[in-house]
């Protein structure tokens, strides 16, 4: 039997509850991308050859660098929580800043990558793309939507960290009250996990 919170306690300090809410929200995020993965799976099944050709066009190096960036940012995120819980506020703040910077670097990289594609005339509904064959249209359609949606999540994550930075500084988030930061961390890690799947599916599988 799980322990329910006794109501007479101050219930705004219900950490387990707060985390539970966050996890439930993450479930919806997983399924949000899940819907896209269903599409990806079906179209890949229907047009294996086109997916093969199209995937070759993506820059594996850029993708790999971005994977490293995001994994590292996940590390710094986790470290910032650990630091806070060890009551090393300054260190925690440093890690938070690094996390944000890595997130920004990820987005910068994406910008370069998308820019290159668009420069080559590959963007939704472009004349060049339409001439490429149906599977490739779908591949790039999925590519833009999925990486775009993922990028949006990274951007939101950075926004959330700005708040966390402020909260940590002002002491709202502190050693004995770190659940906000932990929840922000959970979100960031999930965004990372999604990328862990996007990376092989778009860049590696040839």
């Amino acid at each position, binding site marked *: *039997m*799980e322990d*329910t*919170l*006794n*109501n*007479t306690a101050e*219930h705004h300090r*219900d950490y*387990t*509850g707060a985390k*539970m*809410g966050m996890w*439930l*929200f993450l*479930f*919806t*995020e*997983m*399924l*949000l*991308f*899940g*819907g*896209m993965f*269903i*599409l990806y799976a*079906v*179209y890949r099944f*229907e*047009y294996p050859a086109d997916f093969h050709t199209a995937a070759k066009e993506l820059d594996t190096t850029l993708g790999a660098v971005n994977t490293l960036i995001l994994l590292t940012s996940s590390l710094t995120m986790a470290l910032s929580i650990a630091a806070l819980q060890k009551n090393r506020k300054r260190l925690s703040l440093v890690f938070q800043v690094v996390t944000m910077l890595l997130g920004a670097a990820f987005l910068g990289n994406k910008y370069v990558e998308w820019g290159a594609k668009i420069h080559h005339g590959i963007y*939704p*509904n472009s004349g060049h793309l*339409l001439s490429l*064959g*149906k*599977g490739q*249209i*779908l591949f790039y*359609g*999925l590519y*833009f*939507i999925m990486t775009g949606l993922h990028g949006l999540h990274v951007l939101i994550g950075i926004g959330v960290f700005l708040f966390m930075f402020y909260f940590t500084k002002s002491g709202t988030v502190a050693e004995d009250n770190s659940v906000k930061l932990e929840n922000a961390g959970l979100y960031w890690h999930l965004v990372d996990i999604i990328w862990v799947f996007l990376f092989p599916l778009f860049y590696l599988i040839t």
Partner: protein
Amino acid sequence: MKEDRENRKADRGFWIYEGGKTGLFSWIFTTDHKRIGILYLTSLAVFFAAGVTFGILMRLELISPGKTIMSASTYNSIFTVHGVIMIFLFIIPGIPVSLGNFLLPLQIGARDVAFPRINLLSWWLYIAGGIIALLSLFTGTGPPDTGWTFYAPYSIRTGTNVSLAVFAAFVLGFSSILTGMNFITTIHRLRAPGMTWFRIPLFVWTLYATAWVQILATPILAITLLLIILERFFGMGLFDPAKGGDPVLYQHLFWIYSHPAVYIMIVPAMGVVTEIIPVFARRTVFGYKAIAFSSIGIAAVGFFVWGHHMFTSGISDTSKVIFSLLTFLVAIPSGIKVFNWVASLYKGSIKVDTPLLYVISFIFLFCIGGLTGLINGTLATNIHIHGTHFIVAHFHYVMFGGTAFAFFAGIHYWFPKIFGRMYSEARAKLAWLFLFIGFNVLYFPMFIVGWQGMPRRYYDYLPEFHNLNFISTTGSWILAVGLILLFANLIRSVRKGEIAGSNPWKGTTLEWTVPSPPPVENFEEIPTVTHGPYKYE
């Protein structure tokens, strides 16, 4: 009674407490679950009124073949907007956000939900979604005309204002997700001491099952609708056959959400029914555990039957067979509930007040809707009746005859708790009579006319379908009378009804232990629970 009258000036509970804000702001910025429940209740009523008005207009158009009162494109927009409002703004949020919000903390012995501010946010998103939906009617290129299903590629090609309507549904989806998240956490974390899983009222069980469906199914709809918008703006091609996309895949994604959604609609309604029966039969409910688990069962199996909406859409025959088989499995937990309800009347001491009257008609109408659902789910018969008015009849029986009737039952049942006053019993029964008769006159002929082959979403029809359509339209007027009576009675009783006292029905769940209307933080002292919810000795 006399004593009650003396108490007229008694505490008006959460109605007068303003929480540091005044007037309107004390409502629209409240975090009190009861006030939020009331906010939802009123907004639902507004959208419901809009939806039924569109319904009656459609019936008027269909009273005879050919053009009667509107053009074909107006008709197409009207059934779309009717469907969108009814589904996304009325019946999916429906019972959980209004009665659920109000009662969940009360029934489990908590002071509020786990995340009161998110609860408010969820209402704001709901209102935003509603406003966007209404905007889609009056701006841009005119109201959407795709049907509530937004099937591609038509929804991508049509020039009407589909994007905005779809966006509205997207926003409403988030509202729904937040509510689900909130409820699950509340039920896990905030149960009163001693309130074990098998001591929570069965309404809470249904809210729990529903919340999981909301969390796990809604995101799929969100992404699908987002794709429609992107498709319209950027021509991504994911559902456009000319670019390799597969319109059937759109249908898969749509129904992966929208079938489970029908259980978001009905399961809480079943919970309301389960609360009411023992109270009016003055006996414990029959088969508590079976009813509790059947809610979970319906929710779980309901995830994997979506293909039954697509039997004629060109999916593989193999998957049709499997989806059909799974569809039938839902009948078993539904049956468990029905049989347990009937058994809960056995050897009771029954008084047929309005709530029970609605409950009994719920069981009757839901059985018709459910059993015809099985006819839909049968492969050989679905092929013929798919896309006809038979389906229209089926879903009005389950949604209106089922969910909405249970909603009415619940509103009557908890009315004294929410408002502290009693409605007029005689008028309520009269309204019920009109509703029940009107309902059947309106929708039953649709089964026949659908069986004869009249397709749905038809602005015009062949003369051979005239008689039944005429009868059906007549029914809509009787129904309208019933609805107006119902709402008039309730609205009047909010101010003029007799003071009800804290427990007029002799209910045994926790909400009846607090004053009516309940005070701000519900319980002066959190109760300790020592037994199951329906204990009559």
